[in-house]
């Protein structure tokens, strides 16, 4: 499935959602929900300026799942937080770019208007549900708070809705447990509560930042299944942030691979798995143990990710890259189309693709 195909499919699927949010002032055009355009984010600390995001662009359509893949420090979480508008500023500073939701730039929007998009339009699920839920309020109360803040609902109605949501995310005995506190739930159940809270107001975009990293493997699969189910049911645009290639394979439509604050490769999930176009992606794929190659050494990427305060000139990946040439230390490769609807930021993508 190519990019254009998936977006047109998404556009037709999107009709259902448009119905659901008829009262919203935000109307996606041709199913296009979110456009991140040349985004730059810096962190100003005592030790210097860390360039966390250096020109990131991507689109998100209704019903589409975009996976953003990268190791910690690659800027994937910062991107999510910038889109969500929950970056701590300072130390963070958005130094360039736009984040358009249904055509409107979120970054220049008045604070109050932007606040009202958080929850009903764009919503987020965090990695660690235990610390992300307030320890001193019952979980039902925290879900109900969405309805009370954004819909002005009274307490008992909001609680009714919270129970329904808890049932929707398959929390057993939801009615009895609505007054329980976060620490009284298991990790998987807590993440379900997080998800219930995030989807409470039927958002068009759901961002899940490492939603399963803190969980057991068996629970991981259940949570991913639930997210996928909800996404199809509501035709949400889902941004899935992860460092784990295994998690995204079954769920994502498109993948953007990030390195040192830039997208280095962008492709349809199957194309990327079959034939990576960037040496970093290739390295990631080779570091996954495979049953058919049992007995061989696992190939790991040598070296460490760059210090964001001193990103190497040229291609940021060049010190760790086995394809690196003198050109790579001088000239920074831009994201370019290397095959139809496949983009990579590498001078030697063709060689990577062929070998």
């Amino acid at each position: 499935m190519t990019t254009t195909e998936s977006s047109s499919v998404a556009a037709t699927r999107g009709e259902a959602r448009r119905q659901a949010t008829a009262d919203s002032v935000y109307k996606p055009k041709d199913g296009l929900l979110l456009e991140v355009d040349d985004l730059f984010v810096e962190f100003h600390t005592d030790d210097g300026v860390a360039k966390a995001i250096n020109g990131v662009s991507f689109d998100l359509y209704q019903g589409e799942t975009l996976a953003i893949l990268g190791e910690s420090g690659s800027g994937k979480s910062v991107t999510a937080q910038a889109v969500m508008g929950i970056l701590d500023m300072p130390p963070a500073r958005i130094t360039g770019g736009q984040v358009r939701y249904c055509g409107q730039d979120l970054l220049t929007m008045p604070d109050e208007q932007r606040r009202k998009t958080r929850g009903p339009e764009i919503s987020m699920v965090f990695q660690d549900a235990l610390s992300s839920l307030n320890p001193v309020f019952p979980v039902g109360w925290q879900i109900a708070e969405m309805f009370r803040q954004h819909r002005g609902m009274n307490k008992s109605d909001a609680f009714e809705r919270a129970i329904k949501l808890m049932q929707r995310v398959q929390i057993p005995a939801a009615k009895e447990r609505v007054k329980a506190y976060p620490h009284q739930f298991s990790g998987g159940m807590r993440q379900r509560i997080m998800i219930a809270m995030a989807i409470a107001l039927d958002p068009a975009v759901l961002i899940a930042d490492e939603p399963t990293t803190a969980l057991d493997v068996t629970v991981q699969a259940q949570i991913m299944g639930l997210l996928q189910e909800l996404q199809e049911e509501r035709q949400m645009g889902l941004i899935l942030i992860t460092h784990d290639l295994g998690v995204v394979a079954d769920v994502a439509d498109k993948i953007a691979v990030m390195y040192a604050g830039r997208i280095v490769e962008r492709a349809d999930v199957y194309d990327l798995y079959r034939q990576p176009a960037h040496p970093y992606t290739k390295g990631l794929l080779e570091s996954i143990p495979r049953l058919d190659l049992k007995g061989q050494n696992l190939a790991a990427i040598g070296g460490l990710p760059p210090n964001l305060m001193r990103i190497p000139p040229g291609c940021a990946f060049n010190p760790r890259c086995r394809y690196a040439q003198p050109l790579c230390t001088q000239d920074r490769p831009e994201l370019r189309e290397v095959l139809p609807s496949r983009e990579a930021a590498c001078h030697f993508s063709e060689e990577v693709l062929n070998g």
Partner: protein
Amino acid sequence: MGKYIVRRLLQMIPVILGATFLIYAMVFALPGDPTAGKCGERPCPPAYVAKFREEHNLNDPLLVQYGKYLGKLAQGDLGTSFYGIPVKEELAKRYVTTGKLALMAVAWETLIGIFAGVLAGIRKGKFIDNLVLVSTLLVISIPVFVIGATLQMFLGVRMGLFPVTVSSQATFYELLLPSFVLASASVAYIARLTRANMVENLRADYVRTAIAKGLTRRRAVGLHTLRNSLIPVVTYIGVDIGALLGGAIVTERIFNIQGVGGFLFRSIGARDGVAVVGTVTALVVVYLFANLLVDLLYGVLDPRISHD
């Protein structure tokens, strides 16, 4: 919960026994003549000394003395003061005054301390934050009797805004300034504690969640952050009651308040051992009960603490 209270009460018994023994031993068993100074400048006549020692069982071994004292204590008998008035009666009267003073001090702590702390916490690094940090540091550094005497001088004597001394009625208005003086150091501590907790909790993941939920900043800070930040503050206020009761000695002396502290000070001056032991014991017991209350409150405020 009920079980927990019973367990805590049982645990308190050895602590009360130990503390009262310590106090008793310090006053009665150590070298020094307990009748010294009771008969003016001259030593007391042997007949009086003998009677005194008999009355207070001072001829028995220490543990027996203490046991007998404890027996009376259990019946609510704190002994008779130097002036022939039962210590219990004297304390009962004076506890009302000191209680009022301490409660008003707690009110100052809560109102000003928390308000200043929250303000500083949400404006971290700004002018108001530095103002709170510097002024609280100053208040902590200056001894309370200097603060008390100076405020009494300027606000009371010079400007005539507050009464300089407190009558035996100890009215609300009369106690305003003394309670503020008594609370001053604690106000500063609470402001700093609240600030530190606010700063830490503002960085907490659940506050980020609150923002991501689209809550107003007012609600994210004023409800989600504050609710969590106040848990240690409430604990501090409870534990601080001990310090307030001790500090009342100084404040009551400055403002001539007829409270427990004033009585204790007078008894020490008169070398009235019975009155001293009784008063300190009563203060310590109140302090221990306040601590228990705080622990119970902690469980209510923080659902993660379980008292089962």
